[in-house]
């Protein structure tokens, strides 16, 4: 259990840091989506299923969709 949780936390940190460093904004959005998805799994493992459902549906699905629509309207690459 502790190994799974620590692996997930390290993966979450790696996704968050890579979301900051990506120049391609679409990749950055996918990395921040990974943060939300791993956070949902962590909430479930830490026995908070209500928050896990909310995080998976709002944080992972809808927010990512809104960011992708925003990128489609503006530029894809950061200068």
């Amino acid at each position, binding site marked *: 259990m502790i190994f799974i949780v620590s692996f997930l936390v390290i993966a979450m940190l790696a996704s968050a840091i890579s979301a900051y460093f990506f120049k391609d904004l679409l990749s950055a959005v996918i990395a921040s989506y990974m943060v939300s998805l791993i956070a949902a799994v962590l909430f479930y493992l830490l026995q908070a*299923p209500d928050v896990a*459902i*909310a995080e998976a*549906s709002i944080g992972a699905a*809808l927010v990512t969709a809104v960011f992708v629509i925003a990128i489609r309207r503006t530029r894809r690459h950061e200068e």
Partner: protein
Amino acid sequence: MRKIIGIILLIVIAWGIIISLQGIPFGVLRTEVADHYINKGIEETGAANIVTSVVVNYRSLDTLGEVTILFLAAIGLGAVLATIIRKEDRETVKASLILSTGCKFLFPFILLFGAYIFIHGHLTPGGGFQGGAIIASAFLLIYLGCHREKRINETGIIISESLGGLIFVVIGLIGLLTGTHYFLNNFMPKGEFNTLLSAGIIPIIYIAIGFKVGAELSKIIELLMEES
């Protein structure tokens, strides 16, 4: 000059936070009110899911505030995007038959799952907000798969959105008139524990919230997809 003022402000804010943090007892497991929810929650509200009994029974006024914030956000987005002129001549790629058929096939099942989440909010994890978000993701799937082919019924969105808010407030006002005279009082019979028809007003309010949140988030998705 501005830097010095910024540093002074930062020090004042940090000092205030440190002072207020010192008042909180550190290392104590739970506050008394959490113990009350865990020990007496099932008995007082009749809901098997304690999180739901806190969100819709003990702290339902906060939930009303959250729903209002979401409503204002949807209205604000609609007001901002209404001023932008639509670009109709933008070229779009039509989705392949497999993708659009798959989206149409999955759509009712995702709707059913969202409805299950908010109808069973007092028994299993989940509730109105989560179910509404799942319903909105079903509409997002339809917009991605069958763009400019299917559209959301505007009147349906307005009716379910207004009815949801109205039912929430009217049930709260009925609770004010009966029983112990406080807003959103759980005045209905508790029913048999751990069955669908139990926990008084909690399932009714969660169904109302589910319809309201689903309609608002679907409206936001529709506005953004139509403008892009």
